C-alpha cells in the first residue's frame, strides 16, 4: 500500500507552506498550514474502519540495506491511535497558536518547526523498521529542541532546550544501541519480525542489555525518574508547544516505545522491576513536585511526569489488562492535559503571569475559561464522570491485581493511592488558587476572556473529556480495542469500560484519593512549610553545572596533553615508534645474517671517525651555531665520500651540491636567528633525550646492520638489463630517475618547486630586524664585498656553467644529470650574490625564477605527455640515434627533455629561495659603532 509511504511525508511537504505563507495574514498562514495535516488525518481515518476490523497496513521500500534501514511503515491500532492524537491535537494546536503567538513572533518559523515535529512523530509511530524508528525518534528530539528554544533570546529557553536535547539525545543513543543489538539478535530490523520473536528475544543472552538500553531511550523521552527533570525546564517553550509536545506527543513517544515493544520485551521479571518501579517512582515524584509549583505550567509539567509514571507503571505490570489501562490513560491524559496547557496558556496570555501567587480570583474575569479548566482539571484529578476517572479506576484495579513483589506487593496500591491523593491536591490547587482565593496581585494586565477561536481547541478537548467520560465505549471503544490489540500483538482481553462497577476496592481508593487530596490541599500551608525546609535545587543549574564541569575537566585534560610543546610531541612520536619497533626487534634472534661482510680498511675507519666525531661535535656545540655548521659540513662531506666509496657516484655528487646549498641557507638563517642558543635544557631533560636518542640510534643501527648482512633478491636486475636497451642510457641510476621511475622524479621536482613557492610566501611578509653585531657583540665588518671574492666569483661563473652543462649532458650515460647540473648553476649564481650582493645582480640578471619553476615542471610533464600521441602511457620514453655529417652519431631521448625540466625547476626553485632571502636585507641595516 504505497499511500502509506507518503503518509508521514505529507506534513513534511507542509513545512515549507508556513514559511511561504507567513507573509500573508496569520489566519491564512494557519489555515494553509493546517491543510496538509488535516488531509493526512483524513487519510489516516479512512483506514480506521479496516483497522478496527483487525487489519494492519504495511508498506516498505528498500533504503540502506547495509545498516538495516528500510523505508517501512505500518498502520495498526497502536499507530492509528497515536496518529490520530498527533494529527488531531496538532490541528488544534495550530489553531490555538494562531492566537497565542504575538506579532513579534515569527509564526511561519513556528509552524514550520511544529509541522516538522509532527512529521517526525508520525514517522516514529508509523515505523515498521527499527532503524527508521530511531531515525524519526531523533528527529523528534531535534525538532522539539527547535520548538523549546523558539524564544532563543531567553536564557531559560536556551538552557531548557539544551537540557531536553541532551537528555533525550543521550537516551536516543542508548536506544540506537539497544535497537541494533535487538535487530542483530533477531536477525531482522523489521518490526513485525521483532514482535513475532518475543520468546526468542527474552530467552537470548542479550535480552537484559536490550531491555536496559531501549528503556533508557523510553525513560529519557518520557521524563521518567530520574531523567524527569528536563520536562519542567522545557516549559520555557511557548505554551502551544507544551500543549502539543509535553502532553500528547513527544513525551508519549517513550510510552509508545514501551507499548510498541511490549510483545517483544515485556512480561519478564526484569521488565517488571525496571519499568514498574521506575513508573511508580516517577508517578509519586511528579505528583509530589506538582503540588509545590508556583508556576502554572510547572504544575502541569510535573503532573505530566506523574501521569507518565502512571502509564509506565501500568506497562510494567505485564498483564494484558494493565496494558489496556495504559493505552486508555494515554488517550485520556492527552486530552485533558492538552486542554489544561491551553487553558494555562490563555491565562498567561490574558493576564501576563503564570505565577499562582499572583494569579487569584480569575473566575471573575474569565468565567468561561475557568469552567473549561475546572472540567479538565477534574478529569486530571480522576473525578467520576470524567475520562480521567475511568482510566485511573482501571489503574487502581491493576495495582491491586499484581503480585510480583510477593509479600511486599501491597506497597503498590498504597503508593498508587498516595499518588492519587497528591493528584487531587494539585488539581484542586490549579482551580482554587487561580480562579478563587481572593484577588489578583500585581498582574501585568487586567485579565479577560481570550479571543473566541483561541478557546475553541480547549472547548473541543474538554468536550472530549466529558464525552469519553460518559460514553467511553461509544467514543473510543473501537480505537482502544484496536490499539490494545496491536500493543499485545494479538487480541485485547475482555475489559469493561463501564462508568460504574459497583462498590469495590478501586472505588474506595478513588474516594480516599479525593478526600485525602482535598484535605491535603486544605492543609497545604503546613506542607509548603515542610517543603521549604529542603534547600531548593534548580535541576537546570545542577545540570548546567555538571555540563560545565565536564567541559572544564575536558579543557584541563586537553591543556595538559596538548601543552604546545613540540619537544613533547616529538618525544611521543619517537617513543611510540620505538615501542613498536623495539618490541618486534626483540624477537630477532641473531642480528648477523649470512651475507659475507666487506673487510674494514683504514680509509673507511678514518671516514667513520671523522663522521662520528663531527656528528658528536655538532651535538655538543649545537649552541655555538657557526661551529655546529662547520662540523655539520664535515658530516655532509663524509656522507658524500661514503656514497662515492660504496659505488654511488650520482649520490655523492648530489649530496655534495645539496650540502652546499643547505649550508648557505643555514648561514642565511643564522644571521636572522638569535646568534646564541641559551642553555635551557635541564639535566633530567638532557638525560631523557639522550636516552631516547640512543634508543632510536641503537634500533636503527641494529636494523641497518641486520639488513645489510642478509642476502636480498631484488627487482633491480631488470633495471641493469633494460637500462641501455629500454632506456637508452648506461647510467642505470639516471635511467631509473628519468625513465623507469621518472614519475618519482616528476614528483620530486614538484616538491622542490612547491617548497620554493612556499618559501617565497614565507619571505614575502617577513619583517626581521637585522642584528647589528655578531654573537660576541662585535660590529660587523664594513667590507661588504671583498675585492678578491668579487672578482674571482665573476671568473668562476662561466667555468661553473660549463661544468653544469657537462654534468647535465652526460647524466644519462655517466654520473650526473639535470638535478646536479641545476644545483651547480644555482650555486654559481649564488656565488655571484655572495660576491656582489643583490643590487648588483638585480640590474644584471633578469631571470624570472617563478617562470622557471612553472616551465620546468611543465616541460617535464609535457615530455611525459608526448607519449600519448603514440598511444603509450604517460612518461613512456623514446630515444633514438641520429647521424649528422661532421658531428657523427648522437643520441636524442625524451628523457633529456624531462631532465631539462628538472634542471630548470632546480635552478628556479633554488634561486627563488635564495634571491628572495637576500632581498630581505637590501635595505639599510643598523650600524653599531665600535666601542673598545
Amino acid at each position: 500500500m504505497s499511500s502509506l509511504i507518503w503518509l508521514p511525508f505529507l506534513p513534511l511537504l507542509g513545512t515549507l507552506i508556513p514559511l511561504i505563507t507567513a507573509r500573508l495574514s496569520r489566519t491564512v498562514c494557519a489555515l494553509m498550514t493546517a491543510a496538509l495535516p488535516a488531509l493526512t488525518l483524513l487519510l489516516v481515518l479512512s483506514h480506521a474502519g479496516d483497522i478496527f476490523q483487525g487489519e494492519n497496513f504495511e508498506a516498505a521500500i528498500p533504503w540502506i540495506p547495509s545498516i538495516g534501514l528500510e523505508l517501512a511503515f505500518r498502520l495498526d491500532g497502536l499507530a492509528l491511535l497515536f496518529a490520530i492524537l498527533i494529527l488531531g491535537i496538532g490541528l488544534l494546536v495550530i489553531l490555538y497558536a494562531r492566537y497565542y503567538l504575538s506579532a513579534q513572533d515569527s509564526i511561519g518559523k513556528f509552524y514550520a518547526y511544529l509541522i516538522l515535529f509532527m512529521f517526525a512523530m508520525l514517522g516514529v509511530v508509523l515505523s515498521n523498521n527499527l532503524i527508521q524508528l530511531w531515525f524519526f525518534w531523533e528527529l523528534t528530539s531535534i525538532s522539539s529542541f527547535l520548538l523549546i528554544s523558539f524564544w532563543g533570546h531567553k536564557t531559560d529557553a536556551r538552557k531548557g532546550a539544551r537540557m531536553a536535547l541532551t537528555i533525550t539525545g543521550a537516551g536516543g543513543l542508548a536506544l540506537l544501541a539497544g535497537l541494533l543489538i535487538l535487530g542483530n539478535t533477531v536477525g531482522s530490523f523489521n518490526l513485525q519480525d521483532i514482535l513475532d520473536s518475543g520468546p526468542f528475544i527474552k530467552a537470548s543472552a542479550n535480552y537484559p542489555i536490550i531491555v536496559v538500553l531501549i528503556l533508557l531511550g523510553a525513560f529519557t523521552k518520557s521524563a521518567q525518574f530520574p531523567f524527569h527533570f528536563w520536562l519542567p525546564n522545557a516549559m520555557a517553550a511557548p505554551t502551544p508547544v507544551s500543549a502539543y509536545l509535553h502532553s500528547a506527543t513527544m513525551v508519549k513517544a517513550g510510552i509508545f516505545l514501551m507499548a510498541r515493544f511490549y510483545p517483544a520485551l515485556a512480561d519478564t521479571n526484569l521488565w517488571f522491576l525496571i519499568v514498574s518501579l521506575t513508573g511508580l517512582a516517577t508517578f509519586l515524584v511528579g505528583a509530589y513536585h506538582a503540588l509545590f509549583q508556583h508556576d502554572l505550567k510547572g504544575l502541569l509539567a510535573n503532573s505530566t511526569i506523574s501521569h507518565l509514571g502512571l502509564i509506565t507503571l501500568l506497562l510494567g505490570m505485564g498483564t494484558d489488562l494493565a496494558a489496556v489501562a495504559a493505552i486508555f490513560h494515554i488517550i485520556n491524559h492527552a486530552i485533558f492535559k492538552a486542554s489544561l496547557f491551553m487553558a494555562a496558556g490563555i491565562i498567561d496570555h490574558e493576564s501576563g503571569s503564570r505565577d499562582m501567587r499572583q494569579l487569584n480570583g480569575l473566575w471573575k474575569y474569565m468565567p468561561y475559561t475557568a469552567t473549561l479548566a475546572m472540567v479538565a482539571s477534574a478529569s486530571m484529578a480522576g473525578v467520576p464522570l470524567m475520562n480521567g476517572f475511568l482510566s485511573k479506576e482501571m489503574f487502581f484495579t491493576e495495582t491491586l491485581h499484581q503480585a510480583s513483589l510477593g509479600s511486599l506487593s501491597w506497597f503498590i496500591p498504597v503508593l498508587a493511592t498516595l499518588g492519587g491523593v497528591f493528584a487531587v491536591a494539585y488539581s484542586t490547587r490549579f482551580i482554587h488558587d487561580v480562579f478563587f482565593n481572593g484577588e489578583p496581585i500585581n498582574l501585568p494586565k487586567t485579565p479577560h476572556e481570550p479571543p473566541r477561536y483561541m478557546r475553541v481547541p480547549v472547548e473541543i478537548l474538554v468536550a472530549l473529556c466529558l464525552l469519553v467520560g460518559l460514553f467511553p465505549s461509544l467514543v473510543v471503544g473501537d480505537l482502544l480495542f484496536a490499539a490494545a490489540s496491536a500493543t499485545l500483538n494479538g487480541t485485547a482481553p475482555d475489559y469493561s469500560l463501564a462508568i460504574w462497577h459497583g462498590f469495590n476496592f478501586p472505588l474506595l481508593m478513588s474516594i480516599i484519593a479525593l478526600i485525602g487530596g482535598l484535605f491535603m490541599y486544605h492543609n497545604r500551608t503546613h506542607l509548603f512549610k515542610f517543603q521549604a525546609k529542603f534547600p531548593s535545587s534548580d535541576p537546570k543549574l545542577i545540570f548546567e553545572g555538571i555540563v560545565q564541569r565536564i567541559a572544564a575537566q575536558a579543557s584541563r585534560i586537553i591543556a595538559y596533553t596538548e601543552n604546545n610543546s613540540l619537544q613533547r610531541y616529538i618525544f611521543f612520536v619517537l617513543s611510540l615508534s620505538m615501542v613498536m619497533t623495539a618490541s618486534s626487534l626483540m624477537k630477532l634472534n641473531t642480528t648477523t645474517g649470512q651475507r659475507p661482510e666487506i673487510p674494514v680498511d683504514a680509509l673507511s675507519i678514518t671516514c667513520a671517525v671523522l663522521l662520528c666525531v663531527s656528528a658528536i661535535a655538532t651535538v655538543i656545540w649545537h649552541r655555538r651555531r657557526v661551529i655546529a655548521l662547520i662540523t655539520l659540513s664535515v658530516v655532509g662531506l663524509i656522507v658524500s665520500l661514503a656514497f662515492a666509496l660504496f659505488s654511488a657516484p650520482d649520490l655523492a655528487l648530489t649530496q655534495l651540491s645539496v650540502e652546499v646549498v643547505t649550508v648557505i641557507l643555514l648561514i642565511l638563517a643564522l644571521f636572522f636567528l638569535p646568534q646564541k642558543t641559551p642553555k635551557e635544557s635541564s639535566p633530567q631533560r638532557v638525560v631523557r633525550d639522550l636516552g631516547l636518542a640512543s634508543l632510536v640510534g641503537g634500533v636503527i643501527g641494529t636494523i641497518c646492520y641486520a639488513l645489510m648482512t642478509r642476502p636480498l633478491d631484488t627487482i633491480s636486475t631488470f633495471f641493469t638489463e633494460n637500462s641501455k636497451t629500454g632506456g637508452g642510457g648506461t647510467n642505470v641510476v639516471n635511467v631509473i630517475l628519468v625513465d623507469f621511475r621518472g614519475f618519482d622524479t616528476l614528483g620530486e621536482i614538484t616538491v622542490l618547486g612547491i617548497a620554493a613557492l612556499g618559501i617565497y610566501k614565507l619571505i614575502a611578509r617577513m619583517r626581521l630586524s637585522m642584528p647589528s653585531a655578531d654573537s660576541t657583540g662585535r660590529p660587523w665588518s664594513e667590507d661588504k664585498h671583498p675585492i678578491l671574492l668579487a672578482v674571482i666569483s665573476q671568473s668562476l661563473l662561466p667555468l661553473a656553467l660549463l661544468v653544469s652543462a657537462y654534468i647535465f649532458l652526460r647524466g644519462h650515460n655517466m654520473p650526473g644529470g639535470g638535478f646536479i647540473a641545476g644545483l651547480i648553476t644555482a650555486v654559481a649564481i649564488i656565488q655571484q650574490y655572495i660576491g656582489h650582493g643583490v643590487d648588483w645582480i638585480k640590474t644584471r640578471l633578469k631571470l624570472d625564477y617563478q617562470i622557471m619553476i612553472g616551465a620546468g615542471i611543465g616541460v617535464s610533464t609535457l615530455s611525459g605527455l608526448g607519449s600519448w600521441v603514440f598511444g603509450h602511457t604517460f612518461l613512456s620514453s623514446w630515444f633514438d640515434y641520429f647521424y649528422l655529417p661532421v658531428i657523427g652519431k648522437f643520441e636524442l631521448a625524451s628523457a633529456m627533455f624531462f631532465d631539462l625540466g628538472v634542471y630548470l625547476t632546480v635552478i628556479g626553485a633554488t634561486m627563488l629561495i635564495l634571491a628572495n632571502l637576500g632581498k630581505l636585507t637590501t635595505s639599510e641595516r643598523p650600524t653599531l659603532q665600535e666601542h673598545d
Partner: protein
Amino acid sequence: MQHLSIFPILIPLLFGAIMLLPPISRDLNSQRICSIIGTLFLLISSAVLLYQISSDGVQVYALGGWQPPFGIALVADRVSSLLVLLTSFLAFSVMLYAIAGKDKGGAYFHPLFMFQIMGINGAFLTGDIFNLFVFFEILLIASYALLIHAGGKQKTQAAMHYVILNLIGSSLFLFGLGILYGTLGTLNMADMAIKVGQLENGTATLAKTGALLLLVVFGLKAAMLPMHFWLPRTYASASAPVAALFAIMTKVGIYSIFRVYTVIFGEHAGELENIATPWLWPLALLTISIGSIGVLASPSIKTLSANLVIVSSGSLLACAAINTEAATSAALYYMVHSTLASAGLFLLADVIARQRGKAEDRIVRSRPFIQPRLLGFAFAISALALVGMPPLSGFVGKIMILQATQSSVQTMWVWPLILIGSLGALITFSRAGTTLFWRHNGSISTDAEPAKFTEILSIGLLLFASVVLVIFGGYVSEFTQLAADHLHNIQSSAYNLLPGVTQ
C-alpha cells in the same frame, strides 16, 4: 579511455604549472577562472573514472610503459577512485569558497592548491610504496605552504610544529621504506603482498619493524594518539579553504593504513598477518576518547571541527583495526561523510567568524549576525551531520561502524566510545549553536561581511552532499561494500596487478 586514471594527478599538476606562467600568473582573476575550470575538469574526470572502474573493474596504469613491479603503476580501483572523486568534489567546492576572496593575502594560493590536490590524488592512486612517499611529500609541502597562507602569528606557530613533526615523520617513513625494500626487494605494493608471505624468521621480523614504522608515519598523518597533538592548532589556525581542504589530509593517512595493512600485511601475509591490529586497536580507541574530550573542551568552532576530525580519525582507525570487509566498507562511507561535513564546518566557521567582530568563531556572547537564518540553518545542518543524527549522513556512517564490530570485546569498547563521543558532540554543538545564534549583545558589527554567493554555494554543496549520501545511502554503501571486498581480496589476486611477473 586508457589514460583516465592518471588524469586526477596530471590535471592539477598542469594547471598548477600553467598558473605559474604568464600571463595567468600575473592576474588573480584569470587564476581563479583557471582553478575553477581545473577543479571542474578534475571532478568530471574523477566521476568518469569511478563510473568506468565500477563497470570495467580495476585499471592498472603502468607509467613509462614499464610493467609493474618494475615501473611505477597507478592502481585505480573502487577504493582509490572513490577517494579521488571525494577529493575532487572537495577541491571544487572549496575552490568555490576560496575565489570569493580567501585566495588573497599571499602569493601562489591557486598553484599550491592544485599541487596539494595532485599530492592527495597521487597518494590515493599510486600502487608503489615509494611513490606513495613522494606524493605524501608533495601534499605535505603544499600543505605547509598553504597553511601559512595569509599569514599571522598563529599560523606561523602552528606551521612550525606541523612542519617539524612531519619532517620527523618523513624520516621514519624512509627508514620504514628502507627496511621494506631491504627485506622484500621490491616497491610495488602488490608485489610486496606476494613476497611478504614468503618471508621467514629474521627477515620477517625485520620487515615487521619496517611495517610498524610506517604505521607510526601513517598514524601521525591520521592524527592517531599520541601523535594527534599537532592537529587542533594546525587546522584551527589555517585559513578557511585550507582547513577545509585539510579535512581530507588525515584521510590520506587512514587510507594508507588500509592499503598497507590489508593489502600487504593482510590475511595472506604469513608470519606478518595483521601485524597492525594489536597496536591500532587501543590507539584507535584512545584517539576517539581524546578527540571527544577535545570536542567538549573546544573554545571555538574551528577547534571544534578540528577535534571532530580527530574523533573521525579514531573511528576510522578502529575500523582499520577491526579489519573486516564490513568495517572497511563502513570506514569508506564514514570517510566520505566526515570529510565533506567537517570541510563544510570549517568554511562555515570562517563565515561565522567574519560576522561576529572580535568574538570571531569563539563560543561566547557576541554581536548578532547579518545573515542569522542562513548561517543558523547551515550550522544546524552541519551539526547534525557531524554529531551523527538523522537525517544527515553521519548517522549512517556511525551505524555502519557500530554494525561492523565483530566480537563482544570490540563491541564493548567501540560502541560506548562512539556513542558517548556523539553525545559529547551533541552537547558541544547545542551549547555552541545556542550561544552563537541566540546570545547577543550590541548591534551588528560594522566590519561584518555577509557571505558571498560562491561561499554560500560552496558550503551548500558540501552540506548537500551529506543529504545525498543519506538519500542514496543504499547505492553508496553498496559501492563501499564492493570496494571493501576488493581491498580485502587483493592479496589473493595480487598477480592480476602484476603483468610484469608470471605466477
